[in-house]
């Protein structure tokens, strides 16, 4: 029993490291991308059909690749950035690349929920587009954004298990190496249980945060 925990804990740590580091980079790149996507749309505050069209196209393209293919496809890029293609740090790169377009769409739909009347009122007050983004669009959609981050986090967790199968480390790696290759069913079950608990905790926290942020 002790050995099972000894196996699980480092893998859990690896997974959490991968997932949360990826989340930080995903928000860092995905949030601005989602914002640009919204404001450049027709009839919004900075309409620009070329920027909007190009971004939307690239996002759809990236999202249409299955994660496992994407991961292999960008190996040279991963090596360039991380210096290696094996291990948890290397896995972060494909995870971030896959999660950015997903999160950008999540941000897009959250920001689109902001009542146009409120934006119009800010324009009438003489607010600049940047002020509208920072002081209106983002604060007004904070609750939806928190839920969006939750969904994205769970998504990254799912991807990270896949990354494990190609030497990424973490719970997915553990399940494949012990549970699958060595026929240690109890390791497989334990991994699945840990993942279930993890997803539940993330969703619960996300809902709670969204509820606190919601002033409507």
């Amino acid at each position, binding site marked *: 029993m002790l050995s099972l925990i000894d196996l699980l804990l480092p893998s859990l740590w690896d997974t959490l490291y991968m997932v949360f580091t990826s989340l930080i980079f995903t928000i860092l790149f995905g949030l601005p991308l989602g914002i640009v996507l919204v404001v450049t749309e027709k009839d919004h505050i900075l309409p620009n059909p070329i920027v909007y069209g190009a971004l939307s196209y690239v996002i759809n393209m990236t999202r249409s690749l299955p994660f496992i293919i994407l991961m292999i496809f960008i190996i040279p890029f991963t090596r360039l950035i991380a210096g290696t293609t094996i291990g948890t740090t290397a896995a972060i790169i494909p995870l971030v690349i896959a999660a950015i377009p997903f999160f950008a769409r999540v941000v897009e739909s959250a920001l689109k929920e902001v*009542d146009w*009347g*409120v934006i*119009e*009122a*800010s*324009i*009438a*007050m*003489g*607010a*600049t587009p940047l*002020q509208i983004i920072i*002081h*209106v669009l983002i*604060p*007004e959609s*904070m609750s939806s954004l928190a839920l969006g981050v939750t969904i994205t986090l769970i998504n990254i967790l799912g991807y990270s298990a896949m990354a494990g199968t190609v030497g990424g480390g973490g719970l997915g790696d553990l399940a494949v190496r012990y549970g699958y290759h060595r026929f240690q069913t109890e390791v497989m079950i334990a991994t699945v249980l840990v993942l279930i608990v993890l997803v539940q905790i993330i969703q619960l926290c996300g809902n709670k945060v969204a509820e606190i*942020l919601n*002033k*409507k």
Partner: protein
Amino acid sequence: MIQIKQLSKIYSKGKNQVSALEDINLTIEQGTIYGIIGLSGAGKSSLIRCINRIEEPTSGEVWINNVDITHLSPGELRKVRKKIGMIFQNFNLLSSKTVFDNIAFPLRLNKTPENVVKEKVMALLKLVDLTEKAHVYPSQLSGGQKQRVGIARALVSDPDVLLCDEATSALDPKTTKQILSLLKEINQGLGLTIVIITHEMEVIKEVCTDVTILEHGRVVEQGKTIDIFSKPGNEITKHFVDQIQHLPTHLHNGTLLSLSFTQGSAGEPVISKLIKDLQVDVNILAGKIEWIQEKPIGKLTVEVDRNTVPLAQIIDYFEKNHVRVEVFNYA
């Protein structure tokens, strides 16, 4: 002063072109409360949005205090907008900010020092009577309270003009009256020019000194509210003034006259003198007093027998006695 010159607005959707406003000319004097009334689709919402260029006019000019705002750069336009307050039918408050922060919002956009912000916001909270709600979120307020926050927010940057876009349409009649008297108080206290668009004649009657009636994107009537009320010259105006009073048709068979008595004529027994002088039968069908900003207008609907005396003579008699006459021919 606001001057609108030959303003037109055309919406294009694919091949379809819809003309929302056509050749609008308006002059709104400093310090007046100016009403623009029309049915939905008359173009009043587009018109008020062209005044601060939230909507771009297709052609024409909008002059505010001798600046043509239709030719300003985005940066200059933002500066002008800071001096034009606006309130909305749906209030458009930031749900993520407290009442205090909503009112402070325009000031903080201008990076006003916090001590000045606090002072100004507290003063406005007092004006709109919401001091104890300062740290509450808008979702916990009633419609009337939300609109008062909207008014405070619009006034916080000391505007020259306040635009009201159907500001009372989402409120019940009692709250509407409260908001209107607040607007009137602000108009008198701060000398602010207020432009109100509405579909409710009550709003115009209550506060507006001047009125423009819009129909299908065109101005159909323009003038002092009291004049428009005592003698509406146009079908759509009559619709708003509603002076036929929906008389049951079986009650009359002659010629109906609608009479408006303003201050000069109200003291004279005009009807009784008419009956004696012209020997004509008059049947009184309906009557009421309308109040246009504390000025009474007496409205009387009467039936006369045009066979005994020519109608023109009767009308002439009324006009001489300063009674405004309108003829409805039912028979």
